[in-house]
């Protein structure tokens, strides 16, 4: 080594590596220990079935309608729920962006997240069940003659997912909506664009990339539904979602390899939807949403 060249430490810090870099270590350890290792272990496990060749678990899953059917069952819940949450969140976010007391509303909306799915499910059973207020009021008013079945079926899980998923979707949507410079809307208005055109020409193109991200995150949340599918759903058929299949494989059949394989398939199918949405997003404008400044 020539004496002219800088020390190793100096060369490393020139590339952005110095003592401060060590601060990422706890985070790296955390991610490796709690995410990467279990994931790789599960992947390895899924190719080591109790019996048969390496791919036995996967062939079993895709040849048994009781198993592969869960993918469609889960999609049928997660996709419309995510879409509906987005469609409800968007107009509300547009209204809330003009409010002054946004924080109060935000706090109110965070509450359902903190309650958790189990409490929401309990409440739904009491409120929406056959003997619940909802049905009794409707029957008293003479609107229905027999109780509407809103729990222990598809709609029970649907409603529960909307309730627990909405705050998250809304808060994300709100942050994207408020991130758009209000002077852009004013400029569009002075140029003759009415409210509908301002939305279509200015807000929507600027929001779509953010809405795509919101969709992905909300979808992933809904896709991994388990508690509400059991508590307010019909876990043996209509709401037998993919996580139930994995759960049963692991805890009822003690087949961890099969459970891992199902978990991998679950991951891949969500990834498929996310990749599709992000792929569409890459076709959109993704620059700054503020008025460009020099």
């Amino acid at each position: 080594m020539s004496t002219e060249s800088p020390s190793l430490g100096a060369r490393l810090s020139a590339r952005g590596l110095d003592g401060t870099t060590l601060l990422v270590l706890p985070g790296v350890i955390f991610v490796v220990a709690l995410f990467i290792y279990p994931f790789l272990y599960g992947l390895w496990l899924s190719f080591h079935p109790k019996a048969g060749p390496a791919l036995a678990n996967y062939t079993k899953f895709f040849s048994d309608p009781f198993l592969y059917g869960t993918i469609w069952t889960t999609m049928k819940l997660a996709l419309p729920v995510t879409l509906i949450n987005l469609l409800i969140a968007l107009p509300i976010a547009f209204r809330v962006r003009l409010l002054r007391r946004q924080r109060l509303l935000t706090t109110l909306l965070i509450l359902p997240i903190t309650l958790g799915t189990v409490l929401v499910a309990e409440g739904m059973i009491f409120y929406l069940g056959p003997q619940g207020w909802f049905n009794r009021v409707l029957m008293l008013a003479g609107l229905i003659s027999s109780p509407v079945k809103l729990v222990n079926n598809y709609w029970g899980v649907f409603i529960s997912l909307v309730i627990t998923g909405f705050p998250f979707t809304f808060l994300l949507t709100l942050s994207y909506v408020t991130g758009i410079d209000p002077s852009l809307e004013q400029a569009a208005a002075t140029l003759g664009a009415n409210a509908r055109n301002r939305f279509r020409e200015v807000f929507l193109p600027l929001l779509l990339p953010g809405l795509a991200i919101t969709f992905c995150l909300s979808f992933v949340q809904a896709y991994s539904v388990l508690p509400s599918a059991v508590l307010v759903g019909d876990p043996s058929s209509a709401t037998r979602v993919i996580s139930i299949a994995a759960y049963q494989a692991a805890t009822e059949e003690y087949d961890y390899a099969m459970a891992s394989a199902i978990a991998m398939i679950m991951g891949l199918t969500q990834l498929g939807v996310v990749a599709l949405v992000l792929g569409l997003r890459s076709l959109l404008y993704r620059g700054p949403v503020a008025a460009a400044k020099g």
Partner: protein
Amino acid sequence: MTTPVFQELRLEAIRREFGGFNALKGVSLTIRRGEFIALLGPSGCGKTTALNCIAGLLALSGGRIMLDDRRIDTLRPEQRGFGMVFQNYALFPHMTIAKNIGFGLRMRGTPADEMARRIAAAVQLVRLQGQEAKLPGQLSGGQQQRVAIARAIVIEPPLVLMDEPLSNLDAKLRLEMRQEIRRIHSSLGSTTIYVTHDQEEALSLADRIVVLREGEIRQVGTPEELYARPTDLGVADFMGYRNRVAGRLVGEAGGFVRVAIDGGELEGLLQGPAPKDGRVVVALRPEDLRAGAAGSVDAKVTAIEYRGHEFVGLAAVASGAELHFSADERLAAGAPVRLSGARERTLVFAETAA
């Protein structure tokens, strides 16, 4: 949707409150077709509020806005058809320059061939040929500013509103764009209302200047009138009268009054009737208070700086009050100096005129 050419725009006692705060306290003003009007004032004086009210971006709390005999303050901004240039340009970041400029035309359902022709003409007017396919983020600040102007004028609005359009540009570009804005105004024959806090900008651009302060009009006049004859100290302050010295009337001679101040005496023109107690404030620009042997005020130089064609400095009188003055040579700090005022450009106000 396009507003027909008008003869005059009248603000009739317009008011705007923001939760108890009066941003505009009954402003009345008549703007004639073809005029270039500058709304001038310090920040918080209500000038941007007034502009937003005219554009329709803010509702009035009281008063009316009339375009000839048509009431327009009840119309939504998209129904008024005025062009507006925003301080931060507000270009649509996802649209090309051509799309940005053509937005207003598209909203009006202009046929494609006419739209292309008018966009090309607007691009040429603001000298942005070759940039049409770029996104706003790819242009410099000055270019973006020109896009904003082109976008506002391509719809041929009868009234163009500009909200401090040059405040985000550097000094050299500001000067260039100033001339550009005046050129565009003249070549289109439109009416322009221009909001600024920069007195130089207002003086060089406007046909008439409206000085606003605390939500009220303080003075309306041509740049020459405002520069030479501000009606009160507030306006004088804005017009570059940096010296405001308290004094006492001691005499009168040939149309000028003599005022005794700390360190000597100054002569000037009395504005309004003489106050009974004789207490006045003398307002004087630094360039009209010069160092020289024939001076009438004694002071000590405290600071001096070179400005190319002359020196400007600060001098303290016995009481410690400081005066801005100009000189032909560099004076040493701490040296005694005699200052003389140009009496025909020295204004004397009664002390109560704030």
